[in-house]
């Protein structure tokens, strides 16, 4: 989780990822953020996030992203 928080905070230093839970619904993350966050997550956690994983419920909060990572790691 610490590693994920670091990736997120570097991409968007302005957001408090401990509380934010509408990252996609409120259009907080843009295409540039998604590209950089996803490529770093893929590299760091050795997974491949698919286009069909790009859903609000998977990316609205840091904990949702962490759940997605854990799910993909167990596949």
């Amino acid at each position, binding site marked *: 989780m610490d590693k994920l928080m670091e990736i997120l905070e*570097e*991409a*968007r*230093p*302005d957001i408090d990822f401990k509380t934010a839970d509408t990252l*996609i619904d409120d*259009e907080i*993350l*843009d*295409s*540039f*953020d*998604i*590209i*950089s966050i*996803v*490529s770093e997550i893929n590299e760091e956690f050795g997974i491949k*996030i*698919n*286009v*069909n994983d*790009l*859903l609000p419920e998977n*990316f609205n909060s840091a904990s949702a992203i962490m759940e997605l990572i854990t799910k993909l790691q167990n596949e």
Partner: protein
Amino acid sequence: MIRLLERAAERFPDKTALADENTSYTYREYLGSARIVGGYIAEVMAPGTVRQPIAVLIERNAKSIVAFMGIVCSGNFYVPLDAGLPEERLGVILSELSPAGIIDCRGVSGEKAKEAAGISGRSAVTFEEILSYYGKDAGRADTLVEERIAETIDTDPLYAIFTSGSTGVPKGVLVSHRSVMDLTDAFAEVFSFDEGSVFGNQAPFDFDVSVKDIYNAMKCGGRVEVIPKRMFVRPNLLLPYLAEREINTLIWAVSAVRIVAEFRALDEVRLEKPLRLRYIMFSGEVMPVKSLNYFMERMPETVFVNLYGPTEITCNCTYYIVDRQYAPDEMLPIGRAFPNTRILLLDEQQRRINEPGKTGEICVAGSCLALGYWNAPARTAESFCQNPEIKGYSGLIYRTGDLAYFREDGSLVFASRKDFQIKHMGHRIELGEIEAALNGIEWIDVSCCLYDTVKEKIFCFYQAEVEDRKGIVKILSTKLPKYMWPNKYIRVDAMPLNAHGKIDRRALEELKEKG
């Protein structure tokens, strides 16, 4: 430019000209509504005012474009502003600009009609309120604007767009009707657009990439589809939307094109209707060859174009139609000059470079040159200056500050920047502007920013007693737009200085590499 819209309205009165997710305008409605907005400005908002700025609080919707044309009908020029910008920056821009009026295009049609809209302590009028002003008496607006349109000449300003400025104050680039006319003529000559062209607008309207959608569509009688912002983080919504709306021409920022390739969305997303893309044009930063190849392999019929140019020369001055596959380590050229545009590569002695491989500054001549920076004659004179090859008459060039060289085949290849301007997230950013904001923080002694082009991250080095990244970000977020906020923050006890007493950027580079 209004004559261009009038011609399209005569040829295709009932054809859809503008559309967003919820609404659409035919060419007749587009022109008719623009004339009402123009009449309102001439009669109520700014009587007797011409060639003055009128701001538009934009949203990703069709009516923002109608408001732009309405302002043009009134003989004034439009300035698109994103109301989501930090309050302080909006305040700076508005006080620099002192607009003759502000039109609020944010709310969903009808919803905000009666609410008093305003920004930074200035009052604004909603688009809906303006449209309902004349009721059945739209003829009165027509008479008013006809006079204004007839008096407009092509060297009058059409719009101003604010970009990053190195001294900490954003600069407003003022572009004339003539320059945009020249842009649409050049695009029409090089590319084949027609009334079947459907431009999928990605760029926000305060970003000049959108100018190409608006005016190329107007010239060919095509349609602009304003694509909702949320789709650009969801390729699985974006691709079906492109297909459903029959969008066939994309003039996008590199990052928007890239997200489709990064997620291999062309393979993974199932479409009911096939995508039929005639053109994919991209600009703003370097397109990774890997992403481009992903598209080219899957879309053999599509023409891919690399566009280059700063806002000061009206969007683009060179183009490169990708004519073969590139290897991932090859540089994609920025190509050659558009018709009626001259590119001069000048060395440090102001001599023209013609031989391949030698690096010089890209300087541009032609009708594409902007009128200059709003209210900043000294700054304008620095960048828009006399062509050193011309003696005996006035002939201006714009110095881009971008360095490039010619390939053997005569195509230009971008090399680097002359100064501390960077391209990040599709925006041209002056590192000096970020530093100015950082240095304005009370407890920071001095700061310096570097850009890592591989990681695409801005590094901030600051000299201070305490380490407080969150505190810095909190202050920056009130002053700068988000694409200007540094990604990495490194505190130093003392800023390294070189022999001249200036900040030693090389030492900081080393510090950056060490992490």
